[in-house]
């Protein structure tokens, strides 16, 4: 206890030097929490949105379906197996059919994916209810697109675009589709290059009656069919790309955190070296008065580590209001931030989890402890007489 009292007294006695170190460390502490909070917030938002708009709670894929190879789409369709059909009947699964197609907006040629989805589905957030048929026109094809696609094709609601595709036998067909809705989503993988039309219409147009490419499973689905030929992809598999990107981002976050911390810790290390050099007679007096060398080492280590505790307190004092303000207002992202294909909202809302804050506190305290201890090792080798005469170093 004596060491703690002495350490705090010495530290506060150092005045400006201590507060400079504490300020630098507190900045590093707050920035680390902010950066990690931003990544965690983005991760949560992207994961939730991707689940809501694209992946659901899982998916059953046609055995030949490979979303990374568009050339597999023409062959990856068939009638769904009984187990999956039973889920669809209970509204616990919704089938999606994909066909490669070409759009011709204003005489331009744009490669697109024509996707069929049930207008009555409730599993995905895609506003499929906007796919309203026109009973008076048998050739009417309602279609919805995302705002990125609308921008790319330069289309507005109510306008028409000519689309060409091939049916199951490879025969060309072409019709105009009418844009009945433009939706805004943070998930570019269900927007860019895609036109959504009613599933039954697409099945009819492509001679693929009752067929689908994959089925999206509802989070409320209880018993999933086993031993199906269609491949089940769970939540983890479907979000793997996102998780990989986040892991890479976390890696870069660790590098930035380490650099910030290194700058702050360098100051503490420097202070420790200076203290030991300037306070040799004091160290000799402590030992002469009966303190063991290890107690003196402990005293100086605690003194250095206390910087981190003060930094956390100071950081909380100025950082907490700032971080909470940022959390409330969000961080605006540039309009083309989602061009890489990852879900990014207009604003990222940081998420400061308890675990992340505790881990940052531990990191700051432990690293301060290490850099505070390292320079004090030479105290354990000193002779008290030399120290009293100021000849330790």
């Amino acid at each position, binding site marked *: 206890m004596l060491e703690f009292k002495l350490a705090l007294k010495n530290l506060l006695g150092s005045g400006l030097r201590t507060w400079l170190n504490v300020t630098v460390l507190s900045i590093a502490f707050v920035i680390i929490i902010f950066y990690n909070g931003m990544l965690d917030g983005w991760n949560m938002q992207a994961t939730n949105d991707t689940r809501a708009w694209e992946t659901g709670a899982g998916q059953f894929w046609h055995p030949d379906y490979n979303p990374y190879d568009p*050339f597999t789409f023409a062959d990856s369709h068939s009638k769904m197996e009984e187990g999956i059909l039973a889920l669809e009947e209970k509204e616990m699964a919704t089938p999606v059919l994909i066909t490669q197609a070409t759009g011709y907006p204003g005489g*331009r040629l744009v490669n697109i994916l024509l996707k069929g989805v049930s207008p009555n589905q409730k599993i995905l957030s895609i506003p499929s209810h906007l796919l309203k048929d026109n009973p008076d026109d048998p050739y009417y094809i309602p279609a919805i697109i995302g705002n990125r696609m609308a921008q790319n094709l330069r289309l507005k609601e109510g306008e028409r675009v000519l689309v060409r595709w*091939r049916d199951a*036998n*490879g*025969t*060309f*067909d072409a019709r105009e589709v009418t844009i009945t809705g433009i939706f805004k989503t943070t998930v570019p993988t269900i927007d860019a290059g895609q036109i959504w039309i009613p599933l039954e219409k697409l099945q009819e147009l492509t001679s693929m009656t009752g067929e689908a490419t994959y089925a999206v499973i509802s989070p409320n689905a209880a018993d999933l069919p086993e031993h199906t030929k269609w491949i089940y992809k769970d939540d983890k598999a479907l979000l793997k790309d996102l998780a990989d990107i986040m892991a890479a981002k976390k890696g870069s976050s660790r590098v930035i955190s380490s650099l910030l911390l290194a700058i702050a810790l360098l100051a503490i290390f420097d202070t420790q070296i200076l203290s030991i050099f300037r306070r040799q007679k004091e160290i000799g007096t402590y030992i002469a008065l009966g303190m063991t060398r290890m107690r003196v080492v402990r005293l100086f280590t605690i003194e250095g580590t206390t910087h981190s505790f003060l930094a956390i307190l100071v950081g909380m004092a100025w950082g907490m209001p700032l971080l909470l303000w940022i959390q409330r207002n969000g961080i605006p992202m540039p309009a083309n931030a989602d061009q890489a294909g990852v879900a990014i909202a207009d604003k990222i809302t940081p998420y400061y989890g308890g675990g992340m804050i505790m881990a940052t506190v531990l990191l700051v305290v432990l690293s301060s402890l290490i850099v505070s201890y390292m320079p004090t090792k030479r105290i354990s080798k000193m002779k008290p007489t030399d120290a009293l005469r100021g000849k330790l170093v």
Partner: protein
Amino acid sequence: MKIFNNTFTRIILIIISTLITLQLTGQNGKEILEKVDQNLSSKNRIIESSLTIHGRRSSRTITSRSWTEGDKKSFTEYLTPASEAGTKMLKLDGQLWIYTPSADRTIQISGHLLRQSVMGSDLSYEDMMDDRKLSDVYNVTVTGKDTLQKRDVLVLELVAKVSDIAYYKQKMWIDAERYVPLRQEMYARSGQLLKRAELTEVKRIQNRWYPSKVVYKDMLKDGKGTEFVTSSIKFDQTIPEHIFSKASLR
């Protein structure tokens, strides 16, 4: 009496023109298509041709030499420009191999890759490879007669009788005398016009009529289309078997 004469003359003229139309269109569509096939199809052929692709900003021309046997075997070597020279394509049944000298690699194109455009043109590999006789894959009806390129033509409507075909419907303007198409329109199942080919410079080659210039145009997009000009063609030659082997790609 004068009025009667005028009316009579008109009736006679109508009857004569109807008879002429009936005589022309009365020909069995299938027979016409078979005559077209006789002109266009052969046991084998060796062609030197150029493909001019008109882009938005510029045009480029690719020349090639091809050896073709029936609808199953074909070997093509690109001659110019320098960037494409030495590229070779071998088609055997439904498979296609392409050798690229710059990469010194042979890749196989199959399945749906065959539906991709050939070097950015309005033609797909499938368009180039589908050499089936028209009379084998289409039911045909003669719908009328017309004049095109200052020649009398018969207008044929072709509707697919097989399911594995790219164009469900075609319309052809056939030279009524030489039985060679002068215009060809390809339609989607919905009736939407997809592509148009204008066939010109019909020449007499080895007892058959052959259009040496074809301009293909994708009717759904802007652009001038793709020109295919045959500079030399020889039918029913002796082609060594090794030409149609993968060894000839390198």
